[in-house]
């Protein structure tokens, strides 16, 4: 043991008591973020918790707790603990694994798993025992003793390393997570059909950052099941390098596009007010219908001195007297004398305005929906480190939980015509399994013994 292994800090971190404490603290504190909604608007929190509680929670970083210094500290603490614990124990285990100490009968004397049987024909006993032992464990080694012999077999010495693989995997997960948070990004961009985007907006800071390439959305489509539930969102994207298209591909949810280490995910969609909106204005006095091309923000002057009309807004989910009527243009009709009136023009119900019974009935004559696709744009150079950690963790768990280092020693003492056999086994884990193997060997021996007795009787 080196001197640094005696330092109190090392000893503190090498203790499993710390592991248990940190694990339980992580479990308990993780609950908080599932009860308090994370990353909401300040006003929503103040409304729910009141000013004082809000201030207290803000100080404790409760509203983004999984990224708070104290939660991250717990994760780092766990990793240090795992690392030190492994460092503390691995050298000894490594020595056992790479330099097997060889066979010493004394190590089996106090084995908790033991069985004794007697064999009446010592001549056949050895090959019988060897066969049974090699079937249950593996290669058998023979060692002569004063009044008999030892048979010894072992397997799974390397499985002692399994738990260190699991621990290493946790270090990989944390390292991968750190790499991702330092050198990766997570952003979003909305691209209207036919248009090209060069920059994206980061999700956490809202900052705009440029990409090395351009993304064009050629087409977006959404399909529905008969029930009305969405079935598929599909965007056709083209990647352009300095204005030259290099790649065109469709993406759907669960099938992103990866280009130059940057991933483009289908995450949302929406539609924009049409560029080619034509409204019809029907005068009640004359019954004449006038068609006018218009766009949001523009004003047209109506004939017959009926006033003017402006499109003030386009709402994707318009609420009309408490009813959701879907996409709608909202306009302002200003008569020559009198107050302006609000006119709602739902895309789905073109002659909705007739209901208002005004001097002019406004209706949508022509419109064309244009979609935009909402893309999640991410880059995470740490993801392969994390995935390596995943594989190591699964492999390590299988080895740690379901494999063990098992050794069985059979001691045969020959006394004249009787061979008394003691089967002893040791295992670093899963004592039930080694006992089962010892029982199996004993049963095999007893069965052969019975058969030979019966044949000698007949």
């Amino acid at each position, binding site marked *: 043991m080196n001197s640094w292994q005696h330092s109190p800090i090392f000893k503190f971190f090498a203790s*499993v*008591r710390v*592991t*248990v404490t940190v*694990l*339980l603290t*992580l*479990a308990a504190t*993780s*609950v908080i*973020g*599932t*009860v308090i*909604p*994370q990353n909401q608007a300040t006003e929503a929190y103040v409304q729910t918790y009141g000013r004082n509680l809000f201030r207290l929670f803000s100080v404790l970083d409760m509203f983004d707790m*999984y990224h708070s210094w104290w939660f991250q500290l717990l994760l780092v603490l766990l990793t240090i603990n795992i690392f030190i614990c492994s460092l503390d124990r691995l050298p000894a285990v490594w020595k056992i694994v790479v330099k097997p100490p060889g066979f010493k009968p004394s190590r089996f004397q106090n084995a908790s798993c033991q069985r004794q049987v007697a064999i009446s024909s010592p001549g056949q006993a050895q090959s019988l025992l060897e066969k049974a032992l090699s079937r249950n464990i593996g290669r058998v080694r023979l060692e002569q003793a004063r009044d008999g012999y030892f048979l010894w077999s072992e397997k799974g010495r390397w499985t002692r390393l399994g738990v260190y693989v699991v621990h290493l995997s946790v270090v990989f997960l944390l390292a991968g*997570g750190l790499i991702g948070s330092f050198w990766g990004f*997570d952003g979003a961009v909305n691209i209207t059909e036919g248009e090209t985007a060069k920059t994206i907006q980061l999700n956490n800071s809202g900052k705009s950052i440029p990409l090395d390439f351009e993304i064009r959305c050629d087409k977006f489509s959404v399909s529905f*099941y008969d*029930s009305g*539930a*969405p*079935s*598929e*969102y599909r965007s056709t994207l083209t990647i352009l390098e300095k204005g030259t298209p290099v790649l065109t591909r469709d993406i*759907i*949810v*669960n*099938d*992103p596009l990866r280009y130059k280490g940057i*991933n483009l*995910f*289908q*995450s949302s969609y929406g539609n924009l007010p049409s560029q080619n909106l034509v409204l019809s204005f029907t005068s009640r006095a004359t019954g004449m219908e006038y068609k006018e091309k218009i766009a949001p923000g523009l004003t047209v002057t109506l004939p017959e001195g009926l006033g003017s009309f402006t499109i003030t807004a386009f709402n994707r989910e318009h609420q009309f007297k408490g009813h959701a009527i879907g996409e709608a243009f909202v306009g302002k009709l200003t008569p020559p004398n009198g107050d302006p009136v609000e006119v709602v023009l739902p895309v789905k119900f073109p002659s909705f305005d007739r209901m208002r019974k005004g001097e002019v009935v406004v209706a949508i004559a022509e419109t064309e929906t244009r979609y935009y696709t909402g893309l*999640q*744009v*991410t880059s*995470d150079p740490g*993801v392969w480190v*994390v*995935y390596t950690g*995943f594989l190591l*963790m*699964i492999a390590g*768990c*299988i080895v740690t*939980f*379901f494999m063990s280092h098992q050794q069985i020693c059979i001691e045969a003492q020959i006394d004249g015509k009787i061979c008394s056999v003691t089967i002893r086994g040791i295992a670093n*884990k899963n*004592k*039930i399994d080694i006992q089962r193997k010892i029982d199996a060997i004993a049963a095999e021996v007893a069965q052969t013994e019975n058969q030979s007795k019966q044949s000698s009787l007949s």
Partner: protein
Amino acid sequence: MNSSGILSVVTFVYGFAAFLYVASWIFKKPEPGRLATWVVFAGLMGNITGIAMRWMESYTLGYGHAPLSNLYESLIFFAGTLAAVYLVIEKKYHNRIIGAFAMPFPFLAMAYASLSPNISDRIQPLLPALKSNWLIAHVVACFIGYAAFAIAFGLSIMYLIKDKDAEGKSQLLERFPKTGVLDELSHQMVMFGFLFLTVGIITGAVWANSAWGRYWGWDPKETWSLITWFIYATLLHARLTRGWHGRRIAYLSVAGFAAVMFTYFGVNLLPGLHSYGAMGR
């Protein structure tokens, strides 16, 4: 008869099996227990048939997906896994009293799925986010894990009952497995469950990365599965390296299963991305 019909019959088959195991234990008669094994087996066959038929029915409806996409489907799969894992244990350890503590779970899961007015047994098309090859791996791994934890919970309860009566006064506890065996068996189940929970979380993470571009987002379901993982990791470390046995391990196993149940049902009360597992719709 359609799949829902078969599965409602299976509910009563599992209930009958649970009743037989309890009767066999209380009245100390081996015959009902022996019958119960066959009843569970029949129930499991019906359960598998029901799931297979539901799978085929979804193709007839034109949706065509594995029946693992909502709360109803997860519950019937959970019940089947529980029955299968229990049968393996019974075969390996030859003790039918465990059945009295394990078989009520698949019965309750099926009864909840079939009888609760909040759970629809309609076959519904898959939402875009669920259309992934990871769906089957993720759900199957999670529910094998949950089933193992449920049985570990049953065994821990048996341990705590048996341990209360150290002198062996109660006649009812006479044929209980020894505390050492219960402790070891529940530990084996926890290890088994832990491996599958780990695989379930990992497949979920890989899936999330291909659907949303992030492998971990602290969504309540993710977080609660991690809380569960932390509790069972504590149990394993306490036992393997600090030599904890018996009552303390049994309490941790009970706490772990409470976390499993919250991950499964409770999280639906919280907002998040895993709403497909929620009720109603």
